[in-house]
């Protein structure tokens, strides 16, 4: 792909097989510098919209519709060929932007895969079959004889998912189970001796898995090329655009606490009561109560406290004061201190871990004995009510919050809680626990300031 400054040269790419490109290789097109950035921004709106939908716990059908609406609004041209070009160009530009760290790659991979899945779903079945063959999938259509022998199991699987009957012309494919991880994970296929029996309508999953794995590898290669040649070569032209594109959209990661850097352990109980979001409050209370937390909880709370401004030595003192009551000071030093220092980038490969965003917290899966994750998602209604009451949320608002949580709008529930506790609105919506903390402190400090006057 060549980027030029001057007038547009119309593309020679006149072969349009399917409207859904697979992004196998960068198209041989010339792009204007302005379009380089504009196309990417438009695509980023679509991807960000999907990301928001996911963290707000929207249902898959809602997100699919949202994605297609956003696509139409941002990525359409009157001429079909222009569509394909913008699609390709914007994708490859964003590859440059999002190849540069593990976390960026993960995000981009998830969003592009989700987008691909929704778009594939909305294609005609001929177009879908054509795309499948482009992937060279090692599947075989199940013969009639074999179908009869496993039919009752296939029906059972369908019924377990809420479908009543198999359609009359049901075609099934036999695929090695490794090809359809998503379906296996959700127990949405019958598997036998290593083979999964996949319904035609589930084929999307196969295709999407391939798409994802290819893109994942491509991003690594792109990163290598970026760091070894492109970044330097383009430092006066594309590199500043690429670097700006990323930070303008992901929002702050709260790994470098700024204004409120002076939190000490004696303040902690007080600020936990006033400014911690429910997820962190719960973890904090549990630490004080049980003098212990399992790994997931230690990570979620520990990184949050780092973002809040707790220095590594204070953090060690805090955790030790609690854990020593349960396991003894010596065991703490032996088994837990290392990991706390690790979180602050003081050990091992010295990565400075960033506090978890709401998206990450919501997507985690607490198990037995765990207290992390998003309470709006995991708490029973009774427990949630009690927790909100302890935070001082009035009973009418509690109902509102419960309603939001029930409908899986976890971040909206948290935002409502914030607004109730602080008596002021939060228009941006909560999408990061440290954001909750900072906004809370802002309000409290301005109240104190005005009172002091």
């Amino acid at each position, binding site marked *: 792909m060549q980027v030029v400054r001057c007038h547009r040269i119309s593309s020679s790419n006149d072969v349009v097989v399917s409207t859904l490109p697979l992004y196998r290789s960068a198209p041989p097109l010339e792009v204007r510098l302005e379009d380089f950035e504009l196309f990417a921004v438009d695509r980023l709106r679509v991807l960000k919209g999907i990301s928001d939908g996911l963290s707000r716990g929207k249902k898959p059908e809602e997100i699919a519709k949202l994605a297609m609406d956003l696509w139409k609004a941002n990525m359409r041209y009157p001429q079909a060929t222009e569509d394909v070009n913008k699609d390709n160009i914007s994708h490859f530009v964003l590859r440059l932007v999002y190849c540069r760290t593990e976390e960026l790659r993960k995000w981009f991979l998830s969003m592009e895969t989700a987008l691909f899945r929704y778009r594939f779903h909305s294609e005609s079945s001929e177009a879908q079959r054509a795309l499948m063959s482009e992937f060279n999938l090692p599947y075989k259509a199940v013969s009639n004889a074999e179908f009869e022998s496993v039919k009752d199991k296939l029906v059972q699987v369908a019924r*377990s998912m809420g479908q009543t009957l198999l359609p009359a012309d049901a075609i099934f494919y036999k695929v090695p189970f490794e090809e359809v991880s998503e379906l296996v994970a959700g127990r949405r296929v019958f598997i036998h001796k290593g083979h999964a029996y996949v319904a035609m309508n589930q084929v999307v999953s196969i295709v999407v898995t391939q798409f994802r794995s290819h893109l994942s590898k491509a991003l690594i290669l792109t990163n290598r090329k970026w760091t070894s040649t492109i970044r330097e070569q383009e430092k006066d032209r594309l590199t500043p655009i690429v670097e700006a594109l990323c930070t303008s959209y992901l929002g702050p990661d709260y790994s470098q606490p700024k204004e409120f850097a002076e939190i000490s352990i004696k303040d902690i109980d007080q600020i936990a009561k006033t400014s911690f979001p429910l997820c962190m409050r719960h973890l904090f209370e549990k630490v004080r109560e049980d003098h212990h937390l399992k790994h997931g909880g230690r990570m979620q709370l520990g990184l949050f406290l780092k973002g809040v401004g707790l220095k590594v030595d204070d953090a060690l003192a805090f955790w030790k004061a609690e854990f020593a009551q349960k396991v003894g000071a010596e065991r703490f030093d032996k088994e837990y201190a290392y990991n706390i220092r690790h979180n602050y980038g003081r050990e091992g490969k010295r990565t400075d871990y960033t506090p978890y965003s709401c998206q990450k917290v919501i997507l985690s899966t607490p*198990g037995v004995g*765990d207290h992390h994750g998003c309470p709006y998602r995991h708490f029973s209604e009774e427990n949630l009510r009690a927790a909100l009451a302890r935070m001082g949320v009035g009973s009418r608002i509690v109902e509102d919050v419960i309603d939001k949580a029930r409908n899986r709008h976890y971040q909206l529930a948290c935002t409502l809680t914030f607004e109730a506790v602080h008596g002021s609105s939060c228009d941006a919506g909560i999408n990061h626990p440290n954001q909750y903390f900072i906004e809370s402190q802002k309000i409290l400090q301005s109240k104190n300031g005005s009172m002091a006057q």
Partner: protein
Amino acid sequence: MTKDEVENGRDDMLIDGPEQANAVPDGFNANYLRIYYGKLFPHADIFKWMSYGNDGKHPACDKSYIGRREFSFTLENDIYIRFQSFNSASELENSIKEKCPFKIDIGPVYSVDPAKRHAYAQSGDNVFTPVERELVFDIDITDYDDVRYCCTGADVCLECWPLMTIAIKVIDTALRDDFGFNHILWVYSGRRGVHCWVCDGKARRLTNEQRAAIADYFRVYQGNENSNKKISLPGHVLHPFLARSYTEVLKGFFEAKLLSNQNLLSSEERYEKILEMIPDAVAAELRGRWQEKKRSSMLKNDINVVRWEQLKHALQSGKQKAQGLRRCVEEIVFSFTYPRLDMEVSKHMNHLLKAPFCVHPKTGRVCVPIDPNNCDEFDPTKVPTLSQLLEELNRGGLRQDAEDEWDRTSLGESVTFFRSSFLHPLLKSCKEEIESSYNTKLQQAKNTLSW
């Protein structure tokens, strides 16, 4: 001593009887371990296993394979050394005998020798990365603490150990029938759980995502003490895997053993936990009945069994039309009995897992294999301990040949089983795989060369 001397009874000297001379006090320490590693630990078998046939003479054998496998040792005083690797059986054996590790963990096979990983870190490409690793599972009975009343924490007894037995049955059947794996090793973890090693080539080459998918396939239990219901089985019927597990293993065990062993319905505190899992209307009715009827002496049958029948009847009698009620019974059974896996262990290739035949420091018991076809008979309280084995060695007296000393101790059974049921079939299959892929490559090369 000659026979004469024995018969004459040298009673002018204080002699300890033969039993006391051999007695080895219970314990776990470096001295015991040294003897264990010197005479009993099956070094060569572990090496052969980890080589997966690559230690043979066939031209297709990958000589670098075993050297790329990570081992880690935990030494006395909790010193922990990672990224150990060995290129021969004697290297492995000598290192273990010399370092005398309190615990040996096995990690993945990396792309390069782990000892040389720093040389490859410079390029920033992450060229040092796991390429093969067995599919592993870890089941720990402490994860069942909310449903067992006989023990808590690290304790295990014969009343609650069967939870592990049924976990083995459920998972083993699925691994073989559903996933098509054949080379599966189940190992006692030494104290309170079991590990599973799936060693088929296909399993070793699974990506992290595929491992996570398999772990999710097995996952039913969700949530924790903060949520109400931890098992939710939606849908009109169960997936064939869950249905099979229920009818073949879980239901029978729950109704015949667990209900009574754990007295799940005998007291208010206990039955309230179960009543919490069913709709209020039905729960209220049952509660009323059970609160009135204190222990009636008329009852011949176990009160738990009787109440369970009443509960099932109330839910399934069809008085209430809602489909969801039928699932309640299964959900209760699942929440008490269905296997609870540690997901993180299975999901990541670089997770380190304790090697079989290690000795558990807290119990002194050896991590012996468990036969999944006979797991009902496995008794964790009868697993040989370190001191017991040393005692058995003493009893045998001095021997000239140092080979196969394990065979005259209780460990013999385990090593034999390890070899015959697991290692030999595995190595046979590895050999076939190596040869056949070699032949395929040869054929391909021939085809491309032919004009």
